[in-house]
């Protein structure tokens, strides 16, 4: 095989431009991030994992379409099967992830109830998570990557659908963390 395309120089030039246009985090901050991941794993192990309670899963519009009193359904509606199945990790992966808008947060004692509208499918479901659930944020923290507790974000997430998160589920369907999908704007 022979390269007569000048590919090496083109690629080298492209990579060099990438280096020029970026300012990597300091090593100290990268290490701090690694420590955060380590602490989270240890907390998950000692805490037995973050509890996931998928209370209800319904199709998006089903929540807002209330039948009029004068217009009863012709037939009794059959129970709707849950459309939400927690994603499972791919082979070799630690977590399976769901991408969705997280909103309607309500603090309930030591837990926070949030509504999730899954991207792509439109499936809406509810999660009840411990207040201490770790959430990776960026825009929500003013632009700098940080880990915060879900309980500290209740006010920010109490409104309508605005913030997109990747929600990481372990192999048993338990939520281990939420990561703000800042690359989607917000």
């Amino acid at each position, binding site marked *: 095989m022979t390269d007569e395309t000048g590919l090496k*120089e083109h690629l080298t030039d492209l990579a060099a431009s990438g280096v020029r246009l*970026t300012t990597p985090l300091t090593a100290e901050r990268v*290490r701090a991030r*690694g420590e955060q991941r380590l602490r989270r794993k240890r907390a998950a192990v000692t805490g037995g994992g973050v509890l996931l309670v998928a209370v209800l899963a319904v199709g998006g519009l089903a929540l807002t379409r209330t039948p009029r009193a004068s217009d009863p359904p012709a037939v009794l509606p059959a129970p709707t099967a849950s459309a939400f199945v927690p994603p499972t990790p791919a082979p070799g992966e630690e977590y399976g992830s769901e*991408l969705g808008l997280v909103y309607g947060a309500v603090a309930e004692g030591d837990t926070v109830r949030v509504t999730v509208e899954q991207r792509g499918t439109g499936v809406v479901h509810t999660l009840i998570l411990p207040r201490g659930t770790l959430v990776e944020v960026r825009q929500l923290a003013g632009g700098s990557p940080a880990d915060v507790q879900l309980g500290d974000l209740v006010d920010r997430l109490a409104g309508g659908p605005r913030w997109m998160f990747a929600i990481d589920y372990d192999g048993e369907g338990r939520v281990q963390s939420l990561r703000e999908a800042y690359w*989607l704007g917000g």
Partner: protein
Amino acid sequence: MGSPPDETHGVNEQDFDAFYAASVGRLIGQLYAMTGDLAEAQDVVQEAFARAWERRAELDLGGAPEAWVRTVAWRLAVSRWRRVRTALAFARRQGPPATVPPPEPHHVLLVEALRRIPEAQRRAVVLHHLCDLTVEQVAAEADCPVGTVKAHLSRGRTALARLLTDTELDPRTTTRLSEVRHD
């Protein structure tokens, strides 16, 4: 990094920082070529380094830590792509993503061409032509047979040449560079 953690071994802060400083820029450049997205490249490389520090007890700076970081970063990039692919149209409707300086026009051409060839071909091309790995080393890093790598390289180069035809990167009009033989 295949052995179990051992608190008595591993890497200290000073060594890790030196490794990071020496290789982070190079790896971001490589992942930029692999992904075609500079912000994504920076994110996944930094995340991969964070995971390397998380597993520092297993990290062997005398081995091939850069290849490990590159592999983890690539996997992160691919999995992110797969997760957000359906959400990208939504993102476009919501407004522009974080500001990134505009690339040079000829870089745009190359990135667009790279994005249009299959992931496996793109990765093989970058590992071989940018990272200077032999075909055997590419095969080891990509965990696939040598013959498959050769096929990816051949098809990838052919596809890129076709995609860059009649552009300022047209291989027929640009200066021919050193030939790389691995047959």
